[in-house]
């Protein structure tokens, strides 16, 4: 897998194509600067072998090798049910509709359970935030459920206690003050109707009790922005399907805004046709994001200057609210954007990022109003969050009360404020002074350790609740398994406080909806809500937003262009840090940087040069008196004089996986600079810190791998030859032709739709029992992901264009891996799948060596440890591989088998859509399509019939079943970057 460039390696390929491609695309800065080539090639850690040691080990292995092959499998037992559950058949999965939250906003999912064990999450096609897809966090939720580090007992200090003893202590505490004086409850953003009703009831019962909300990734700026523009906090909601021109001002609507999975679907659909209606995307951002990578026209601008850019844009569009002065000078990007916006009134959309201050949001709302976009591409509803006060303010009030000794009892429901409250909030210190404090959480984290009582929470897959999605759609969250460790939900805990002893989560949620719906016909309503996973609740209500009269927004403060700014961003795979103990997410290469197991300070190539640092050099980042040290990652396309740090790392009590991974950027995040800080100092320390990126692994040596076309070029292709060079000629072959008369499976991947979110990689990991290997193994290039998302850059390192390419096994018809396998472990099946037979594999690794796509993965060590709770997560339909065995993408052969057996039993053929691979199902943008090539009507054939369809390394004549469609961009007329 770790190929070094061979001097003659390109000789066998078409020179002209290779040359052209080599010029155009690159994957890492080291490829541009050949002198750095080895700096992050997979590390070749020296292994010392002595002859005697080797002989000893070999002799022992030989002696042991014979024994397990001699006997039948060990005796297994079957434990029958006492009463069989009515809805399930032995050996068949059951799906439950539920929802999983991301930063408080729910997205519908279907949880697959096998014999009562949740094993896999799929999107809920009926849910508007999902439409069948999910993000990476939902995929990884099953691993979180089975995490052996979850807390399993109630703790009082270091003493193991029971729930009953806790309730007793709680009652005693509540008896102190019958009016609730001194009682405070801290939650994260509340989007659960039932939880909100409970909190309201509680505050009514204890009138002097207070409820606070804080989460580090909150929408304060969004609500403050709408309040500034319209006089009341509103929730903006976008309709990308109706948009022609989209301008993003630091808004990552494809990767992190609430509803991003749905937005990505709408966006991709509006771009897939290369007609004149194809969306054109303008992005201005400083920290490269998934949305920025999709930009047709991108302007790289520091986060602090977005306000001035918005100001200039508003003024150019004639928005009265924008005060003159301080705006940035206009440039080609701004002129083109403004011209396009003016031409597309009513089908344009400007979006501001959650990181930007309220003034930017207000300006953007004024722009959208000016262009008449409301009702077409943007609409407003009352907030999805209940009682959306400023969470920063709420936290500040709480700490002030704690400092003033007004708080006797603090109940923290979820969240981890000791870790992620603003560094200068003093929450941790103030907590010490509270006489009685309890924390409900999944594991004993930083906050639990500082509280008297730690209460194990029930996981979302173990408990009843409800949650609103980005558009207000409510889903009843139903448990798919009884709490593994006797955890309880926030609902049950609040019921205890309210004196409703012993009420179950089910009763609480059901009662809430029964009151709301009325008794008549409630059973049918309830069953339907559970079955479909969707309730169309009339609230939050849609509003016609009207700009406040006399609205006037100026730039109060111009950031000093000569200092360096610091930008905080949620980690792309760990979010705010709550997923730090999730090994799938730790090892998932972060989109754009491909870093695993840790974070880094992202800086531009120019800044790195100025500082004299290279990737992996450690710098000290200073903001006022606060200092942290972090390794540098040079990020092409990053704004100059700006450094981005990702939150969510450096946990000290995450668990055995996440503790101590990366550095803690919250240490620099203060209330005054929640999203960006200015006047930052960067000082190289001279130290180095190894990072584990997958960037230069599996390098493809600059051949014609990703294709990039403009819309005009793509449309011209329908008539003439396609650049570059067109189809590779089918070459002569020595292999006998094989007819595939039954099914003939194939896949098409649309690079134009792929946003690089990596959901496919995690979905595949969950579906196919793929192990994690850890940081040191990733550094050796031994990551096991069956589908990787390669990232390529085109153009200059300062302003590159970014392309993503998911690469699973190509399922070659003339598979190079097969001819070199000495034991026929790599063979073809009758439907053209290139299958890997684990029980034959002896681990020579010849196949991987001969695979031009580098998609084969070898179990160098026993990566799958025998952890009982993790065993329960495994997909029973897929073999768990052992050490010494090669593995790779199978096109989800278990799903094909299931569909084939089902179809065979009813005497029909598999129809298009019966087999959906895990990566295809999860893909938010439907970039991946799979199906039968022998069915002329199949979706995959439709995709492959495009003249743009191309095979990876077609010149090798491997005849891959997986082919690609090029990335097609829609640059502005006259753009020099076309």
């Amino acid at each position, binding site marked *: 897998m770790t190929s070094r460039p061979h001097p003659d390696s390109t000789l066998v390929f078409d020179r002209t194509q290779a040359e052209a491609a080599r010029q155009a695309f690159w994957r890492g800065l080291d490829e541009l600067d050949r002198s750095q080539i080895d700096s992050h090639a997979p590390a070749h850690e020296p292994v010392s072998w002595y002859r005697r040691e080797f002989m000893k080990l070999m002799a022992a292995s030989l002696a042991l090798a*014979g024994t397990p092959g001699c006997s039948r499998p060990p005796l297994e037992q079957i434990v*029958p049910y*006492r009463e069989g559950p009515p809805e399930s*058949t032995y*050996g068949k999965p059951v799906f439950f509709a539920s929802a999983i939250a991301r930063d408080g906003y729910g997205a519908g999912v279907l949880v697959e359970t096998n014999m009562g064990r949740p094993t896999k999450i799929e999107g809920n096609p009926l849910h508007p935030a999902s439409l069948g897809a999910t993000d990476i966090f939902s995929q990884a939720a099953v691993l979180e459920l089975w995490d052996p580090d979850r807390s399993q007992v109630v703790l009082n200090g270091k003493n193991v206690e029971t729930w009953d003893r806790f309730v007793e202590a709680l009652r005693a505490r509540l008896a102190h003050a019958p009016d609730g004086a001194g009682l405070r409850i801290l939650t994260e953003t509340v989007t659960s109707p039932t939880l909100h009703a409970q909190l309201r009831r509680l505050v009514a019962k204890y009138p002097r009790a207070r409820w606070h909300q804080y989460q580090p990734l909150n929408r304060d700026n969004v609500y403050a922005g709408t309040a500034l523009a319209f006089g009341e906090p509103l929730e903006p909601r976008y309709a990308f399907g109706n948009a022609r021109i989209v301008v993003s001002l630091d808004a990552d609507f494809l990767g992190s805004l609430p509803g991003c999975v749905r937005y990505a679907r709408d966006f991709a659909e509006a771009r897939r046709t290369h007609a004149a209606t194809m969306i054109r995307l303008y992005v201005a951002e400083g920290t490269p994001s998934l949305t920025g990578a999709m930009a047709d026209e991108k302007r790289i601008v520091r986060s602090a200057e977005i306000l001035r850019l918005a100001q200039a844009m508003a003024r150019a569009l004639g928005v009265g609210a924008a005060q003159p002065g301080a705006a940035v000078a206009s440039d080609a990007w701004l002129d083109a954007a403004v011209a396009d916006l003016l031409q597309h009134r009513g089908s344009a959309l400007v979006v501001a990022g959650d990181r930007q201050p309220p003034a930017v949001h207000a300006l953007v709302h004024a722009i959208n109003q000016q262009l008449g976009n409301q009702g077409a591409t943007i609409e407003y509803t009352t907030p999805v969050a209940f009682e959306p006060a400023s969470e920063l303010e709420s936290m500040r009030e709480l700490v002030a009360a704690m400092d003033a000794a007004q708080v006797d009892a603090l109940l923290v429901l979820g969240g981890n404020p000791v870790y992620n409250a603003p560094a200068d909030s003093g929450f941790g210190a103030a907590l010490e002074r509270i006489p009685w404090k309890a924390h409900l959480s999944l594991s004993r984290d930083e906050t639990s350790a500082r509280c008297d009582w730690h209460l194990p929470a029930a996981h979302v897959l173990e408990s009843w609740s409800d949650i609103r999605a980005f558009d207000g759609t409510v889903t009843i969250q139903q448990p798919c398994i009884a709490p593994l460790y006797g955890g309880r939900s926030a609902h049950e805990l609040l019921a205890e406080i309210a004196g409703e002893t012993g009420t179950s989560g089910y009763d609480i949620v059901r009662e809430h909806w029964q009151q709301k719906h009325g008794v008549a016909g409630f059973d049918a309503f309830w069953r339907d809500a559970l079955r479909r996973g969707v309730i169309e609740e009339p609230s939050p209500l849609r509003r016609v937003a009207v700009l406040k009269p006399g609205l006037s927004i100026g730039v109060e403060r111009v950031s000093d262009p000569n200092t360096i700014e610091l930008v905080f961003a949620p980690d792309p795979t760990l979010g705010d840090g709550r997923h730090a103990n999730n090994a799938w997410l730790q090892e998932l290469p972060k989109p754009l940087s491909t870093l695993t197991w840790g974070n880094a300070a992202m800086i531009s190539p120019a800044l790195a040069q100025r500082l004299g640092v290279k990737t992996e050099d450690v710098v000290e980042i200073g903001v006022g008196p606060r200092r942290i040290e972090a390794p540098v990652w040079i990020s092409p396309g990053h704004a100059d004089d700006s450094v981005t740090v990702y939150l969510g790392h450096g946990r000290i009590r995450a668990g055995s996986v996440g503790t101590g991974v990366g550095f803690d950027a919250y240490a620099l995040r203060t209330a005054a600079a929640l999203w960006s800080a200015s006047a930052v100092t960067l000082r190289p320390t001279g130290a180095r810190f190894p990072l584990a990126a997958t960037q230069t692994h599996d390098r493809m040596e600059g051949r014609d791998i990703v294709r990039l076309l403009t819309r005009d070029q793509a449309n011209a292709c329908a008539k003439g030859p396609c650049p570059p060079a067109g189809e590779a000629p089918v070459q002569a072959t020595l292999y006998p032709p094989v007819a595939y008369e039954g099914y003939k499976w194939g896949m098409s991947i649309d690079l134009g739709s792929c946003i690089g979110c990596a959901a496919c990689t995690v979905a595949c990991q969950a579906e196919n029992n793929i192990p994690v290997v850890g940081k040191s193994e990733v550094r050796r290039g031994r990551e096991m992901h069956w589908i990787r998302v390669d990232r390529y850059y085109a153009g200059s390192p300062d302003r590159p264009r970014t392309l993503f390419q998911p690469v699973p096994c190509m399922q070659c018809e003339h598979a190079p891996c097969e001819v070199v396998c000495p034991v026929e472990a790599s063979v073809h099946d*009758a439907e053209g799948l290139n*299958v890997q037979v684990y029980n034959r594999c002896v681990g020579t690794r010849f196949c991987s060596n001969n695979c031009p796509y580098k998609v084969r993965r070898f179990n160098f060590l026993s990566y799958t440890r025998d952890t009982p709770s993790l065993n329960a997560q495994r997909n029973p339909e*897929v073999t768990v591989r052992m050490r010494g065995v090669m593995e790779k993408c199978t096109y989800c052969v278990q799903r094909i088998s299931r569909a084939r*057996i089902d179809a065979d039993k009813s005497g029909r053929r598999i129809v298009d859509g019966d087999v959906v691979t895990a990566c295809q199902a999860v893909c938010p943008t439907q970039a991946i399509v799979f199906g039968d090539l022998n069915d002329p009507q199949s979706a995959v054939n439709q995709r492959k019939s495009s003249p743009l369809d191309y095979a990876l390394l077609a010149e090798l004549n491997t005849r891959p079943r997986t082919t690609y469609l090029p990335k097609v961009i829609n640059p502005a007329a006259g753009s020099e970057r076309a």
Partner: protein
Amino acid sequence: MLRLLLIVGLALVALGLITYRVNARPDAQLAAPVEQSVPFSHKHHVTDDGIDCRYCHTSVETSAFAGIPPLSTCMTCHSQIYTEAPVLRALVSAYRGGAALRWNRVHDLPDFVYFDHSIHIAKGVGCSTCHGRVDTMPLTSRVVSLDMQWCLDCHRTPEKYLRPADRIFDMRWQPAADQLARGSELKRGYRVRDERELTSCSTCHR
């Protein structure tokens, strides 16, 4: 010294080979019934009582797994008869909330083999073809080797074993003299996939 080492080494190799031969014989461990905590007799339940296979193995026609009956199935009768019989103590106590009843598997395939009962039933493979005359077994034992060669025998030439759909659960079914002709006819009728497909690795391994 060297000679001694050589002799010991050769002896070890020989011992290993013998162990392998003995254990790898397809019919090793066949005859002996597997011990169970409740000495369940298929002979009694099937032949004496006339209970159909599917009364207990409910999912055999729909799922990969034929299904092991929940205790409540046993108790449909045994809550009335033989309730206090010593042989049923483990069953009754498990049903009343005691230690779970654990059946030892008689037919166990390696974990990398994915066998599906329902498709075999649908395509005309009868119970007794693989499980033998379970209806005559007081204690259940395996009658076939379940090794890959045995599976492939049928996957290569299913016509040797296929039977009409109405005889699938007939334990007394025997192939007729002209089974090959009838089997070929049935194979076409059932639309059994061809040998190349049935012997593809991915048919059973994933």
